Structure formats: C-alpha cells, structure tokens
C-alpha cells in the first residue's frame, strides 16, 4: 500500500529560503578584489550539492520512519568505524588544518564522517531512549544513553574537534530533556562539565561545589550515585589543569583569544577581530551585496565557510542578520512543532535531537563571529560552503518531513508553533 506523504510545506519553504539565502552569500563570498579561484566558484559547487541534497531529501522522505529506526544500529556502527578510520588516516582542512576531520581516499576528500556521526547519534539515542518505559530517573539509569554519546564524542575530541564535541553534548542534553528527564538530574549530569570549566578559578569552583552538595542532599540520589557524582566533580577540578596542558596549542590559543581577542591580534585573535570589524562596520543596512570591504580585501578569513555569517553582517547589515536569525527561529519553532506532533517517541526524539544539533551549530557559529562564543570549526547550517554538511542538513529535513507526515493532524496546518497543535487531540 502506498501511503501519500504530506509534505510539511512551511518546513520545506523555510529550509529552501535558508538555502537560497546561504548560496547567495556563498556567491558573494567569492567576490573578492584579488581572485580566490576556489572560493569564486564555490557557489556553483554548492548549487550542485544543493540539487543532490534536494533529491536525497525527497527520497528519504519516502522512507518510513520504521526503516530509519531499523537503520539506526548499522548507521551508528558505521559512523563509529568511519570516525576511527578518520582518526588514523584522516586529513585536515579549512580553519582547522591541524585536526584530522576529513576522510580522504586517494587524495580525494570524501567528506567529514563527523557529519554522519551527528545524525547517527541522534537516531541511536532516540532508539535507546524510546525503548524505555519511563524517562531515566537516576544517574545510573543514564549509563546507556551516555555511552551512546560518549564513544563518538571521545573519537571526535581525539581528532581533536571541539565543535562537533559540543554538538554531541547539545544533542545529548536536548534529547534527555525531551525524553522527560528532570531538570535536577540534567543539572547533576552536567555537573562534571561545569566543574571542569570552573576549575580554572578555585573560588568559583568552591562555590559551585557547595551548590552541588546542596542539590545532591535535596535530590537525594542513591548513595553510590551521590558519591560517584562528588568524586567525579572533584576529579574534574583536579583534572582540568592537566587537560589544559593536553590541549592542542591551537585550541588553547582559541580559548585564550575568546577571553581576550586583542591578546594576539595578528595570529589567533586576527580572525575574530576581523570578523567583528566586518559585522560592526555593516551598520543597519550593510555595505551592499558583494560589496563588503573586509571580505573583498581578504581581511575576513574563511568567509565562505566558518565566518560566512560575518559576510551577512557586513554586506546586509543588521537587517540581513535579523532576517537570517528570524528564518532560523521559524525553522526551529517548526521543528519543535514536528517533534510535538510526532506519532511515536522515536520520531519525536529524532526531531528534537536534530533541533538540538542545529541549535548548537547556529548559536556557536553565529556567536563566534562576534566573539560571543570561542572559535570552533563548526559550520552554519544551510549557509556554510560544504557538500557533506548541505547534504546532512537536507537529509534531516527529509526525515523531519516524513515524521511530520506521519504525525497527528494535517502536516501543513498553520500557524507554525505549538499552540493548538495538541489541543485538537
């Protein structure tokens, strides 16, 4: 029996608008005073990838969610294997040429397995969480979901790819939240990471530790759990300086520059300073499409990939930035709606996991152009030049369209948002 697939038109239209906006900016990124041949032609390759991505998304939207669920395990294993292969045989590229994120065969870069791993982790985590009767209620019960994320997380951190690591953490917490894990448990689960960050200031760490003990006493977890938690936090506090020493120099530099870009204005701080200048000098309405001087004069680095949003800011101004952010907001609200209306737990968790992944990408990538976030090499969905990422974004749209069509009510029902969606049921 052939079931008619209802396309979620608002979702597809928002994604098309974002892609069109993105490809236009990739085109502009290639318009420089001194020709950068590979960047100048990037928009054509991006268009080709866009066409491929559309076809792939359409095909995927024909596939049942059950099929996708069935693929979760093999997909996850494949992603782990590819990450392992990449770790040993990968090559660098882009802003982070010192890290090995690319899978290269015979000199041809096939793609970044990390992009596949993001989707695979979402699917696997959804499968694991959906299999439970109730949401995890204690830290001990979190062991399996944690393991699902921990393995690929360790592999990408070993590349080292801090950005993708952050995405995994975002996916993990977003999906636990959506699965119904309590806020207190989320806080406890996050505590080692918070300890790690605060360990650089003994006073702050001490204060955090007192809060943690209070939360533990109030929440009353199992004794073993509580002890493990406290011990982990102490260990993180002790480990932090050691980990700091273990960080690659470019990562340490990036973190330091995040705290103060002027510390190293010619080298590590250069990117973010030039990006801020580009955005700030754009003003309300920008310098005009393709006319950004920071970009034209090559002051802005990686203008077609990691720092593409600085081109938006410079050439289209606050107006263009607001439009892009508004499109992302519409996309996110629509995805929340898809997740809310999904027919089953797996679909709902997948949708929300994809949202979590995109959220981290957008906030981190856009934030770093203004030094609101440390610089990591993660791309901006639908904007940054790159074939595998464009494909990954549209595959996600394909899955979401399918989930949406299998969901309750008419898939294209307006308004976009949450109110009224479930009230009809």
């Amino acid at each position, binding site marked *: 029996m052939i079931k008619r697939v209802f396309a979620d038109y608002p979702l597809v239209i928002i994604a098309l608008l974002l892609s069109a906006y993105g490809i236009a900016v990739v085109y502009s990124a290639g318009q420089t005073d001194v020709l950068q041949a590979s960047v100048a032609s990037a928009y054509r390759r991006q268009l080709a990838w866009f066409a491929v991505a559309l076809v792939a998304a359409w095909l995927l939207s024909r596939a049942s969610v059950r099929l996708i669920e069935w693929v979760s395990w093999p997909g996850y294993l494949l992603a782990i294997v590819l990450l392992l292969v990449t770790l040993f045989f990968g090559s660098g590229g882009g802003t982070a040429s010192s890290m090995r994120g690319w899978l290269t065969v015979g000199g041809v870069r096939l793609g970044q397995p990390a992009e596949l791993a993001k989707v695979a982790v979402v699917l696997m985590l959804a499968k694991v969480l959906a299999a439970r009767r109730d949401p995890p209620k204690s830290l001990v019960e979190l062991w399996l979901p944690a393991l699902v994320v921990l393995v690929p997380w360790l592999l990408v951190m070993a590349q080292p790819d801090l950005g993708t690591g952050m995405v995994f953490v975002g996916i993990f917490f977003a999906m636990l939240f959506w699965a119904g894990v309590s806020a207190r448990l989320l806080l406890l689960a996050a505590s080692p990471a918070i300890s790690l960050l605060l360990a650089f200031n003994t006073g702050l760490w001490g204060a955090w530790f007192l809060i943690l003990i209070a939360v533990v006493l109030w929440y009353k977890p199992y004794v073993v759990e509580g002890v493990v938690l406290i011990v982990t936090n102490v260990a993180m506090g002790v480990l932090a300086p050691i980990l700091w020493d273990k960080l690659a120099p470019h990562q340490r530099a990036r973190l330091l520059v995040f705290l103060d870009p002027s510390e190293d204005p010619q080298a590590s701080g250069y990117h973010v300073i030039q990006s801020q*200048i580009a955005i*700030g*000098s754009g003003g309300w309405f920008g310098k005009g499409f393709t006319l950004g001087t*920071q970009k034209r*004069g090559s002051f802005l680095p990686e203008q077609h990939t990691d720092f593409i949003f600085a081109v938006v800011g410079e050439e289209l101004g606050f107006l263009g930035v*607001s439009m892009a952010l508004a499109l992302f907001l519409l996309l*996110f609200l629509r995805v*929340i*709606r898809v997740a809310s209306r999904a027919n089953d*737990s797996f679909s709902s968790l997948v949708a929300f996991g994809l949202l979590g992944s995109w959220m981290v990408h957008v906030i981190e990538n856009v934030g770093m152009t203004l030094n609101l976030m440390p610089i990591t090499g993660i791309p901006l969905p639908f904007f940054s030049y790159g074939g595998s990422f464009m494909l990954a974004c549209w595959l996600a749209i394909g899955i979401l369209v399918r989930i949406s069509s299998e969901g309750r009510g008419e898939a294209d029902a307006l308004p976009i948002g949450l109110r009224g969606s479930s009230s009809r049921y």
Partner: protein
Amino acid sequence: MSLHPNDIQRRGRFAAWLTALSLLALASGFFRAQVLDSERYQLSSEKNRLREVPIPAARGNIYDRHGAIIAENVPGYTVTILSTSADTLRSTLSRLSSIIDLTPADIESAVRRLRRDPNRPTVVLADASFDQVSVLEEHRTEFPSLIIQAAPKRRYPDGPASSAFVGYTSEINETELNSADYVEYKSGQQIGRAGLERQYESQLRGLEGSRFVEVDARGRVVRESGARPDRPATAAPPLQTNIDMDLQRFIASYLGDSLVGGVVAIEPSTGAVLAIHSAPTYDPNRFIGGIPTEYYKQLTTDDRRPLYNKAMQGRYPPASTFKLATAAVALEAGLVTMDTRMPTPCSGGYQYGGRYFRCWDRNGHGAVTLAQAIAKSCDTYFYQLGLRITLSRFLAGGVKLKFGEKSGIDLPNETTPQWPYAVEYFDKAYGPKNWTNAVTLNLSIGQGENTQTILNMARFYTALATDGSAARPEVVARNPERTRIMELTPAQLTGLRDAMGDVVSGRGTAGSAAIEGVVLAGKTGTAQNETARDHAWFVGFAPKDDPKIVVAVMLWQGEHGYAAARIASKVVAHYLKRPAIQPVDIEGDG
C-alpha cells in the same frame, strides 16, 4: 516510552521560549555591534583597507632680485612599497632587486623605515630615474604593493654658480627623525641641507598632501584612488632673494675652477647680498636624491676643499685691508687727521722694543700722511698709529666695529671671526707676563690674533662706503636696521674714501685695477702665509663718491693684493656698466 501530550506541550513551549531567547540574545549582540558600536568598527574597517600615500609638496621656488630662478622643481618619482611586515617587505625587495639595483644595505634601511612608521609607505627609491620607473611599470603586476608617486625634484639651474648660498636638499635621516627638533617630519621627506634651503626650510617646505589607495589584507593595491578624496599638497610660496644672479654667474665663471678663494658683493645702503661665491665650487644638483659616492669622495679628497665655504666659513688674516679699521679707530678717537704724519718716517721698517718690524716696501715710504699711508699701505705708519691708539683702546675699537662677531647673514654655518675682545685675552692666551705691547703692531696692520671672514670684511666696508653705519648682510629681501659702528664726520669719511680711491690709481698699490669712467675705492691686502704663497685680499666699493656695491675678494695663495683687486675691478665694472636687467614677474605672493 510514551510521551504524554501534556508533557510534550509543556516542554515544547519551554523549548520554543529557550530557542527564541537564545536567538534574541544573539540578535542583541549584533544590535550592539552593528548599531551602537558601528562607527568604531567602520573606522577600523577603513583603517584596514585604506592606506594613506603621501603626496610630496613642491618646495618654494627661489628667485633672484630680478626674478631669475635660483631653485625650482622638476618632475621626479619616488618608489614606495606598502608593506604589512618586515618579512614581506624583505621578500618583496629581494625579488625587486633582480629588476632594479638594490643592495642588502638598501633593503635593511627600508626595513628600518618600515619599523619607524608602519602606516606610511616605505620609501625604496627616493628619486627614481625615468628608466627605473619604466622598468618597474613593466613589472607592475608582479609587485601589487608597489606605488610609484610623482614627486617634485629640486633643481638649481645655475648649479655650481649658486652653491655658496643656495644649499641643497636630501631625505631626512634616521638620527634627525629620532631628534625632538624634527617631530613634524616623517620618514622619506626632503629637508633643506645647507644655505638658503636650510635657513628658510620652514618657509620653503610646503605642506604634504595625501591620497588614499585601497589595499587588501596582504597589502596589495586593489584600487589606486577613489576610495576617499585626495588631500592635495600645498606648494610653498616662492622666496625672493637679494642675489643678483647675473653678477653671481659672472663671478663664478670669472673665478672658474682654477682659482681658490671667495667673493662677496653687498649693496652698501641696504646690506643686501648681491653675490656670494666660494671657489672651487660644487654642483648642488648632484646632491639631490642622494650624492653619488664617487662625487662625494672627489669633493672630500680635493685639497682645495670645495665643500668649505671660503666666503663665510674660512677665516684669514685680513692684512692691510684692516688698516682702514686702524685708521677709523684713530680718527674716531681724535688722535689724527688725514694729514697727520708719524714721528718716525718710513725707511723700510720700524724698531720697537728690541725688534725690527718691517714695512712691506723695503725702500721705505718716507714721511707720509695718513691718506698717503693708506694709498701706499705703509706698515711703518700704521705700527706707530697702533701704538698711539694704545692696545686697550684699539681692541675696544675693533669690538665696536664688530670684528669679533658674525656678520649675522641669513645663512647657516657662518664662522665667528677672531678678534681679541680685550687685553685680558692676551693674559689668558699667553700668560700675564709672556706677551708684550708688540702685539699692537701686528694687529694694526691686520696680522696677529685677528682672522676675519671675507663676508665680515665686506660688512665693515659697507660702513666706510656709507655714513659709518652697517646693515646686517641679508640674502633674502628684507630691510634690516642699520647700526652705526663708527662715529666719523662726513669729512673724515670722505678723506678715507679719497685715500682708498688713491689705492686704485697710479699713486696706490692697485693701480692696475682701475676702471675706466668709474672710481673704484678700496684696499689691497697681502696676508702672510708662512708655509706657502701669501693670500691676496681686496675689499672696496664703487663708485667712490656714491657707492652702489661693496666687493670683498680673497684669493687663497693669490700672492699679492692686486691680483684680488683686479677681480674686484671686473666684478664692479660688470655690475655698474652692464645694460639694465628687465625684472621678471614672480608668480605667487613671495
């Protein structure tokens, strides 16, 4: 796991709010950067892409009294490089050295310029030749950070003839840039080095302009202009001088390259310097854009010292030309008249304190009056006149006549003449008991502890040519105040002038220098030179009764005063007898 619709709705709403707030937080960050702080970032962005390229100002032209050009500007080029770091500059220059001649030292000096002023294009060739510019234009695309800028170049049409007063320009050096006196100068700029160029530097300099070129992150020029309007350079106003270029040229060509010495011509009524020349001379044009090493070596190894200004830096014993000073002091003190004879007639010398002081003429002059003693330059007469004045009064008289001071000419590096300020001078120099009154005898004939510049002797004679007052010699047209340096009656002055007229006649020492139709008055001098031939002096003026020009000539090892007198005679004759020169209008308000 079943997700209850109510829970989902609650969490969905929470997620929607969280998403909206996160993006709003991002947007507010952009609002701050793009709206509130936009101006600051716009400035940084402009600073990134625009480089200010200086447009050198044309220096003020220098004109003579009739409007003839002494210094002007011709088109030239400077080659500069926009560089962001010392390393890129070094690599660009080493590539460039395969096209134009650049030594490793040139490259290092360019790197130092960059370090001093990183925001200014680094000067590679301050004065590029047309050939160099053509070659560079051919390779333009290989050197996108290269800027070829038209820059006015200094030229002196009469080069060697004007070297004694005009000076030259060159690029400001590192030591000067480090000094507080040159704070308003920037690396690569031209500065006046000597003569008028240095003296009137602040007037001649002009105001540098600038244009803005657009560059990319690697300093490559992507647009030469249009990014921002140019700020044109302001040329300096012209400088009008008192120099009479026609006379100056005449003097320079008359002395040529074989004679060594100096000539100064002054208009006695105003102190205006008509001509000032030092021989042998050099060509200031060759100093522009860097002195060629061989030329500089040639100038500095020449025994005749072409770079040493004999007219105002060299000090020589004034010899008999100083006898007018002795006479003036005696007349002013009322000790003698023009007709006074001395007790001891001249028999070829004078016995004083166990020592015999010779007159230049061993045959002797007999019992001469003051007027005759001047005409014949009788040493015996002046020995006695000096003694009659007494040393202390004589020294004070010399001080009053300003023999111990610079003339005050508006040119740099004038040497202060040497004149004993008082008797204490001798006590200090030799010890209180180690000198005798015999110094008076030497001083009275212009020898001894008295050395004067040619310029200062000319200044003194302007007082003799007028009413006893002298003006400060001025090269640039102004009207300085005249100061009376000797209190002589018109009759006394006329007497002195008549005696000087006799010098240039059959009755005097320079009869051969007489000019037909013009009475030249003056005094010869032969300065004793122990090691080689004597120096020849002549200082005088003409016409005797209405002097229009004072001329002082000194010939290094010219043997006898009449050699100098003959030159002075030619100068005066040229000046007074040539056809009138039509003045040329000078543009500008100089």
